[in-house]
């Protein structure tokens, strides 16, 4: 039960204030979810260089967790460039040239991995958009596009790892944020677990990320994967997905969860409520539209320009 927001700058400029824009948008709909806030932020990739984010619990021995992570990375001959313990998380920048799926699988089993990406950085924790910014300096982030989420925990815990965005496990640079409830969660989860997928939480939104990962692994385009989601998932949902160079949405057939979009020559912005879009353009009456029930769409950055 939540609020979601996403923004993509269409042109090639890689230095937009993505962090600030998403903080503003999420602040606009914070009433929909006061428990936790999260961001999936994208910048231009340096090939072969990855950022990893882990949740390291307060209660557990943080040092031991970090040692375990680094030990695993060494096994994979990943070279650590930079590292930082921040808030409830641990950030690592590495250089790596092996099998990323394999690395991701091993890292997931070694610690609470919240993202891997050449372009992607997932920052999430309990508290409001401004609380999370205070700790993680989200406002400083410049990049190309991003999605974000405010959460009101209903059935699963209030914890950093249960916060959104969720990373599409095994797939670098893919993240989702979701508002709603997947009612065939256990059935779908069991199917994916049988195929070897790993779930970090009991949050139904994580299912969407893993489901998309599975479709992409089998050669689906993102668009086709979104189309399948609408057919396969029961319940009420509006979610956003982002990759290295695109964002997209899917909306359930019952249209039970809100979504409004604004598009002009420079940007596409989507949010649960228009009040978030207006945060980007104070004092302006915007030409917005609502995606229809049971629809999906993606937008790509015009990299060729």
């Amino acid at each position, binding site marked *: 039960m939540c609020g979601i927001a996403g923004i993509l700058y269409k042109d090639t400029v890689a230095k937009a204030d993505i962090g600030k824009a998403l903080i503003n948008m999420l602040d606009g709909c914070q009433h929909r979810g006061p428990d936790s806030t999260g961001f999936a932020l994208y910048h231009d990739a340096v090939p072969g260089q990855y950022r990893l984010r882990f949740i390291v619990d307060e209660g557990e021995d943080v040092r031991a967790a970090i040692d375990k992570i680094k030990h695993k990375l060494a096994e994979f001959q990943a070279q650590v460039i930079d590292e930082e313990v921040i808030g409830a998380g641990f950030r690592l920048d590495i250089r790596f040239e092996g099998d990323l799926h394999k690395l991701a699988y091993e890292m997931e089993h070694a610690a609470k991995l919240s993202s891997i990406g050449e372009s992607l950085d997932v920052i999430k924790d309990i508290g409001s958009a401004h609380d999370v910014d205070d700790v993680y300096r989200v406002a400083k982030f410049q990049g190309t596009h991003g999605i974000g989420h405010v959460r009101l925990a209903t059935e699963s815990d209030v914890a950093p790892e249960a916060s959104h965005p969720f990373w599409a496990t095994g797939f670098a640079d893919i993240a989702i944020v979701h508002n709603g409830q997947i009612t065939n969660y256990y059935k779908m989860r069991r199917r994916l677990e049988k195929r070897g997928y790993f779930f970090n939480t009991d949050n139904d939104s994580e299912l969407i990320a893993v489901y998309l990962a599975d479709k992409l692994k089998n050669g689906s385009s993102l668009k086709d994967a979104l189309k399948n989601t609408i057919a396969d998932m029961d319940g009420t949902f509006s979610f956003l997905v982002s990759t290295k160079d695109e964002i997209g949405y899917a909306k359930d057939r019952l249209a039970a969860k809100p979504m409004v979009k604004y598009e002009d020559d420079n940007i596409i912005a989507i949010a649960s409520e228009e009040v978030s879009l*207006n945060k980007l353009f104070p004092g302006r009456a915007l030409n917005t*539209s609502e995606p*229809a029930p049971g629809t999906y769409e993606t937008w790509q950055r015009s990299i060729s320009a």
Partner: protein
Amino acid sequence: MATIDLSVVPVREANELIRKYGADGVDVEVLNPDARHHIGVGLTHPIKVTVRGSAGYFCAGLCDGPTFEVERNVGWGLADNMLNGTVIVNGNASAIAGVAIRGAEIIVRGNVGSRAGQVMKEGTLLAAGNANFMAGYMMYGGRLIILGDSGAQLGQDMTGGEIFVAGKINDLGTDAMVTDLPGNELDDIMAFLDKHEIAFNGTFQKVVNAGKKLKYDRSEPRVRVIPFFEASGDNDYWNAKVQEDIHIKAQIGRYRIRGYGTSRALPHLSDLAFRRDLSTIPADPDVVSKVNMKTEIGGRSGANPIKLSMPVMIAPMSYGALSKSAKLAMAIASRLSDISENTGEGGMSNEQREEASQLIYQCLAGRLGWNIHDMQRANGLEIYISQGAKPGLGGQLMAKKVTPEIAKIRGIPAGIDLRSPSRHPDVLGADDLVIKVEEFREATGYRTPVSVKLGAGRVRDDIKIAYKDGFDFVELDGMQGSTGAAGNEVLEYVGIPTLAAIQEAMDALKEVGGDKDMPIVLMGGIKDGADAAKAIALGAKAIAVGTSAIIAGGCIACLQCHVGQCVVGIATQDPEHEKRYNIQAEALNTHRYLESMRWQLAAIAHAHGYDDIHDMSRDDLVALTPEAAEITGLPYEPGYRDRDAGLRQAS
């Protein structure tokens, strides 16, 4: 004209200003709205409000009389429940535009989102553009005009009213059909379009209710009455009631409906005992004056709390399920005992308002009888999510009880088997609910407590949501609670026992640190002061009585509440039957019953050495059965059973 700039004035303050300008007859212009929610909510004066930009959720919600013009778009719930007035939106409206309107003219020049006109009762909603999914969903009356195309399932489960579509109809919903359009109705529409200067050159298809689902096709046969005490025997198998169920199903071919709650033996408050042996405490005739029983509920967010002389309320029961006379007796009894009465579903009557000194006004998904004026004269508001006897389902009021008067108050067609919706149009999750709660607060100037009634189902999750959504208190209803009508199997097997409900609720509140903060009013099979004291010891701030209050007021527990021929005049709308009910006498009976509860509560607290009923705690209780011990976590002390048996004999 006055100007309010929302980039500097918060919406709450702005709405107070708008209401003040309304009282003075001054029009208002709102600048920099930036799609903020609740603009203009609760305005009851005929002024004009111009919104220079886009508005968010519930723009012009809960209003009577004003004219609104919004320059661009609006969010969910445009003109929610508006009684009279005009709203013009020059852009698009999001989901449930014109939800539950009871009059008024709502014009959207762009498109309308899903479920436009859901549960509307009267008035006109016009979309000059297209309408999305399920327009006219469960509408009861009024006129929905769509100049563009309509999305899937148009008119789904509509029971009344008319839908006119000029463009393409994607498909029709259940129980909707296309019918002929009489010339005079087309003239009326064209006049309406002219009045609002909307150019249109075309014609319409008219959609109305198809009449297939308004009543059950076979009614239940009259049966010999098996009273509750007989129906709830020890034998769950082929007892008289089970046989009767089977006979009836053999005739009607569907589930049967009955009144009252579960007849199964379930773990309950009577499976707990007080640790203190009360039989050794000498009787004190003056005990009521020695224990503080005053209870305030509903001040969590700064609203005026409901003030009770003891931690007891009358549970919500509707005028509709009950006769007006029975509702009046409850109101009088509540005043005499200085506690609160509750409207239940289906609206507030003037007589009830006058008799009850503290009145909670219940808002259900169908918004039956809901309106801003009664909201503003209530002492508390209650958003009904569900009921202990039938969690997850809407109410049922069979045709016999849907008289013209009841239909008028509720804004529905008379003589239908009313099956109230089970979901609120604007509450599809905890995130929407928080915006709904805020709308109610805006409409009542933040003075009136807003509570939620939860039928015990997934109590732990629900209570946490209620806490996070800022409710002032929760009315928690276990499965031993009764109802005027529900499917028998639902009553017997669906809910969660009251004892388990309060335990889960308190555990959940402790987990989120809200156990001192958000009071729980427990209901569902509470029959006397001992039950009430145990509920309070387990953590409830107060309890509510429904069934026991009407039994005190003459109910014979025959389980036939749904039929409408109640022999004592309680659960009926038939004047001949209602005549048998003596309002004053039954009000006094109920009052005396409530006073017995007061005495018992005081005596039990006093016997424990407390001078305040709220000093009772879990430490004062033990469990008499393994089940009750498992549910509550109280120590299992079967030895106390013999002691209590002796006590019952002695008294």
